[in-house]
């Protein structure tokens, strides 16, 4: 069961907004389809991120994928431990493996709830 307290993107990022601060990560579906994660590159504190644009990159099995931001705003915190503990993405993608926290100026209008995202994954997972 995916948490229903957050929004999900078609590109498999999740976003939980509380008191104007968005916590952003990637979903279990993304992690399982990437497999064998080897590198994660996240932005620094103070970086501006924009809805729909790349905020970082992840490499698995020699495949580099961009990570897309569900919000616009300023990065106020980065999970600095995550790049050295990529197994957290498999064991706790919606908790310990959060990636960035953003002071939100705008949120995507394309976010799905968990039910809609489950259906999206079912359709994509051919």
């Amino acid at each position, binding site marked *: 069961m995916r948490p229903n307290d957050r929004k999900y993107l*078609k*590109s*498999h990022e999740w976003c939980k907004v509380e008191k104007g601060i968005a916590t952003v990560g990637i979903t279990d579906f993304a992690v*399982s*389809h*990437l*497999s*064998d994660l*080897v*590198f994660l*590159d996240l932005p620094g504190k103070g970086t501006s991120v924009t809805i*729909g644009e790349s905020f970082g*990159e992840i*490499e*698995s*099995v*020699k*495949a*580099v*994928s*961009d990570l*897309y931001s569900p919000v616009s705003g300023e990065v106020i915190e980065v999970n600095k431990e995550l790049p050295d503990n*990529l197994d957290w993405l498999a064991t706790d993608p919606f908790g310990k493996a959060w990636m960035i926290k953003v002071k939100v100026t705008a949120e995507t209008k394309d976010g799905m709830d968990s039910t809609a995202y489950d259906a999206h994954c079912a359709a*994509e*997972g*051919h």
Partner: protein
Amino acid sequence: MHLRLLDCGLVEPALNMALDEALLHGPAPATLRLYGWSPHAVSLGWFQRAAEFADLPAGTPLVRRLTGGGAIHHGCELTFALTVDAGLLPTDVAGSYALVHDALAAAIARVGITTRRLEHGHAPAARPGSRWCFAVPGRGDLLTTTGKLLGSAQRRLARPRARILHHGSLVLRRAPLTPFTAAVADTKDPDAVLPALKSAVAQALAAALGLATERDTATAAEMTMAMQLRAERYRDHAFTFGR
């Protein structure tokens, strides 16, 4: 829908990388570009640190790939760049490699070389034992009895539309900096089999994707974008050496 086939011959390293990125961003649903390298060059994987290659012979051309994995010394080889809408390949990364590598194994077999896809090799590691792609065969790689013959890497975009660039390097003759690879030359004359090999690669990949091949050339718009990327990214010192 067709698989566009661009047989580009020997191309300058920065332009090779720029063309592949232009095709990744371009409108064509599926394109296979076959090429070689002139001059021979070393390509770094996207996340590799250029400082690790300070010991290369002076004057060795160096470019950074958009794709992941380790460095490759592109000597005499058949390189391919498959750029497709993501829906044409399996969603999971490992499955997409399996599809491409099985097609390549079939193509290589058509010129009389037997390979096997490594099913249970090393998984990629965050701190790999070698900086070279071909040094340590990993899960999914194509091997002959003398070593790794084919190396691959990918770039995946989800926006503005879901696209995949799959790079593959098939060694024809061993490159001086990576003498541990296998090579077509171990059993066949590369010059003699190259035309058949190119044709077989195109046919096998097209069949695997359920498409028919169509010979083509890069469009003016693709070339314009490639020339811009070549100047602004792939020939830019900071882009190549910035990591």
